[in-house]
């Protein structure tokens, strides 16, 4: 049972350090207190619920600007550039020089387009700008899905006829379904025009479950995240890393789940433990994914919920206000 003052102090001290070092001062005590006040005894006593909330908060991961930039470098360098160079070397057999490899890589790069997944204003598009900057890529290599194509003589054509690689960048794939839905039509158009073009999907993070779902996307050649979130990152999974500090045959985990699910359902019906029931505990510098437990991010009106890492919702246009 988590209830001691000492534990509360220990966690608060850890949170203070996290806040001033990794969380970029986003969760000072008044914000934490407002957030804890959401838990008002609907499941257990208020103090017990708040201790469960603190227990999760002191393990919450925030990926700040610097970390995201580094991961974007990892995507380009480790997931795209190095494997492509390796492929070029393999194709050249034993007769290769650094110049030859460099030249072939540059040719391949000229016929590569990097795209943010999703619509303008969504996180994939937000990341692609930073991705280009931090990897020193020419502006011409960055595109959006529509600009890949031209329409002439009444038919679809590729804007770059020799297109060889298309790389989709995204921040996270939690369940895999949304990414699959978005990728399928674009991939199908590309492959119809140039079947040999290789298609990549590189999210910063993806759950193991999402990777499995995405593997079934027709025409998608490579799916690889910079960081794979295996089931241990799922808050209430048997292998969860978040309850290793309590050794009570899962009682704390069960109680914590009951609290988070009850409040989660009250604010985010049908997705009380995060979209796709991913049960994640992470946030990014630019937004919090909806796969994270909603108690941390839910920020929509009219619910009177004070989030700690608010999510900027994808609000649909309300015709009434037009």
């Amino acid at each position, binding site marked *: 049972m988590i209830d001691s003052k000492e534990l509360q102090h220990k966690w608060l*001290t850890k949170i203070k350090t996290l806040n*001033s070092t990794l969380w970029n001062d986003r969760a000072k005590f*008044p914000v934490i207190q407002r957030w804890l006040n959401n838990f008002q005894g609907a499941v257990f006593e208020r103090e017990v619920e708040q201790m469960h909330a603190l227990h999760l908060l002191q393990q919450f991961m925030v990926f700040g600007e610097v970390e995201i930039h580094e991961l974007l470098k990892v995507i380009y360098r480790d997931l795209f550039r190095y494997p492509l160079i390796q492929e070029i070397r393999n194709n050249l057999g034993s007769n290769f020089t650094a110049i030859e490899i460099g030249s072939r890589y540059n040719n391949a790069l000229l016929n590569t387009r990097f795209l943010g997944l999703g619509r303008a204003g969504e996180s994939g598009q937000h990341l692609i700008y930073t991705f280009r900057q931090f990897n020193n890529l020419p502006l011409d290599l960055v595109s959006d899905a529509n600009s890949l194509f031209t329409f002439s003589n009444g038919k679809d054509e590729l804007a770059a006829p020799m297109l060889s690689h298309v790389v989709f960048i995204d921040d996270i794939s939690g369940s895999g379904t949304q990414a699959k839905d978005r990728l399928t039509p674009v991939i199908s158009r590309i492959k119809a025009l140039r079947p040999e073009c290789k298609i990549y999907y590189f999210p910063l993070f993806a759950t193991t479950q999402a990777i499995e779902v995405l593997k079934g996307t027709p025409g998608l050649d490579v799916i690889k995240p910079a960081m794979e979130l295996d089931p241990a990152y799922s808050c209430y999974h048997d292998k969860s890393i978040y309850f290793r500090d309590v050794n009570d045959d899962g009682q704390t985990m069960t109680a914590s789940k009951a609290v988070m699910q009850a409040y989660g359902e009250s604010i985010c019906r049908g997705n009380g433990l995060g979209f796709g029931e991913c049960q994640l505990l992470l946030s990014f510098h630019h937004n919090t994914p909806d796969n994270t437990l909603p108690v941390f991010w839910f920020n929509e009106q009219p619910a009177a919920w004070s989030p700690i890492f608010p999510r900027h919702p994808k609000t649909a246009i309300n015709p009434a206000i037009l």
Partner: protein
Amino acid sequence: MKPTVNPFSLTKAVDLTDEQINSFWVDINSTGGFAKKAKPTSPMPMIIMGGKGSGKTHLMRHYAYQVQKLRNTGFDLFSSIVSEGYLGVYIRTPGLNASRFRDKSQSQAQWAALFSYYLELWFAQTLLSVFQEFITNSNKKIDNEPKLVGDMYKLFDKSPATAPETLSGFIDLLEDLRKKLDFKINNAAFSRTLDVTIYALNGKLIFGIPKLLQAAFPDLKNLVFLYLVDEYEHFDEQAQRYFNTLIREREFPVGFKIGVKLWGLKTLKTFSGDEGLKEGSEFERLILDADLRASPSVYQQFALNLCRTRLQEVISKKISDNPNDIQKFFSDANSLSLAETDWGRACARFKGTRRPGVTSLEKKLKEHAKRFQSLAVESDNQVAEIISLIEFDEDYLIEKTNCFLLYRAWYRNKPLLKAAREIREDCLRYVKGERANTAHATVLDKFEGDLRHQFIIEAEHKIDYLGLESFIAMSHGIARNLLTILRGVYDWSLFYGEEPSALVSVRAQRIAVEEASEWFFQDAQHQSDGGKNAAIATDRIGELLQAIRYSDKPSECSLRSFSVEWDGLDAQTRDTIELAEKLSFIIRDSERKERNSARPTPKFQLNRMLSPRYRLPIASRGSIHLSISEAQAIFGNPDPTSFKKIKMDRLRELNAPFSSVIKQGGEIYEFEF
């Protein structure tokens, strides 16, 4: 959101830039300031000692040329340095890595000569680099550079290379010789040889070059070339002995200031006929923190200025010299309502319920008192009557005093019901304001703080150590202690969302003080066996003082001090006590002779930084005297068994049913305290 900067985040002078050393510098407010104590213009060598964080490095870097230059910005540099009377050459000994100069199949004599030669090159190079920068920044030219450089070159016993003609060339030559030496020393473990030619020894360059520089610049005829050698503890005994020899044989215009931790001075011996350096005639000693502790008002003012200087970095409004202006940033007991204080919060907990002190007294009476005839407690009804006389709902402090007085009567083997009636009478007189000659007035005069703290702890609350004045007192003459408390206070205050320019809350202070106390205990530790023993012993003495203070009938008020009978102690006990003192766990209060005896009994205080860790007061009045066996059990024996025994023996005297009563009752009576 950009995190707000904590002005106290940097607490170690070694981490500060020259600009920060200059801007954070605070002098003491006594005639002549620090300069009068540190005497930078005096050619008499000085060993500057002090506990960890007492300001040795900041002081020495303040006298270094790089900071001299900064504080004289806007003035003519050359005449400013001449008027300051010294040119500071700051050297940190860890850069030398003195541990390289041993073993590797070479004799000790070889290493000694090599170390001495290395020092010549290193010091001379550092000095000349500083001097060259000084001359360049002063827009001065050397009239006859080739002659000066030629004269310096002649200081070598033998030509090491082609003679340079410029000062830069000479500096390069020194660096080149030093690098070659580095290479040979570093590879000696593999080559098993040390084929080195020594070109200069015994201060030839260290003392010779300043003389030549002075001759080349007659305006510098009174300038002291001040070597500021910091972190001397990194020199092993042999290295210190060599350096001590240099100190003894120093020649004008060279001065030395040696910075060393209290535990770091390994020897005062020299190689000059094996004699030791003589304090007073061959060197002076300044113990920074002891010196500041000896003048509490000077330290208080210094600490306030230290805090003001840092706070002013983040607060736009000018903070005046008035102590209130700076103290008002921190809530303290005076700025709180009674209900917000530790006492008020503890009292609130017991509204309408019996206090633990009374419950515990009742339990002890029921369990033990009836067994002793002299106490005249025969039934539970009598116990109930005693308790009804002791309980005092109107004022919990008076009630605590009542309990204390009843325990005292018990200790004195008095009939307790009668004693309780007298206590009640006294209590009512005291409350009416007829305080003269009441036992309550006498007890509260001495023990009020202790009884309040007992009550707060019984209420499972924490004792407050609030306000800047408390922090300054807690820092016990060591500036870094104060900065560390303030860093924590400020960190928590920012986390709690408080405005940097507003009042720092009580809750931020409460947590930070507790953390700082724990930090001090960990940070002061030394990773040697002796150091570990000193930490264990400190923990024991803290535990013992705490147990006595929170006993039924504490023997002393405001207890944080102890004395020991020095003469009979074994060597290990003495060593551990001395090391605990050098690590600043305990602070020597005074040396006194025991009454009717010529035996020395040094008195020590537990460092005030440890007060929160052991719930002890900041002020110190009473003191316990440790017998030889007690001192040896605490400081001399790593095994905890004998410590547990002496602690239990002490507590039997202070907690009911009191061993003295048990003895008088003639019963064999085992009681777990």
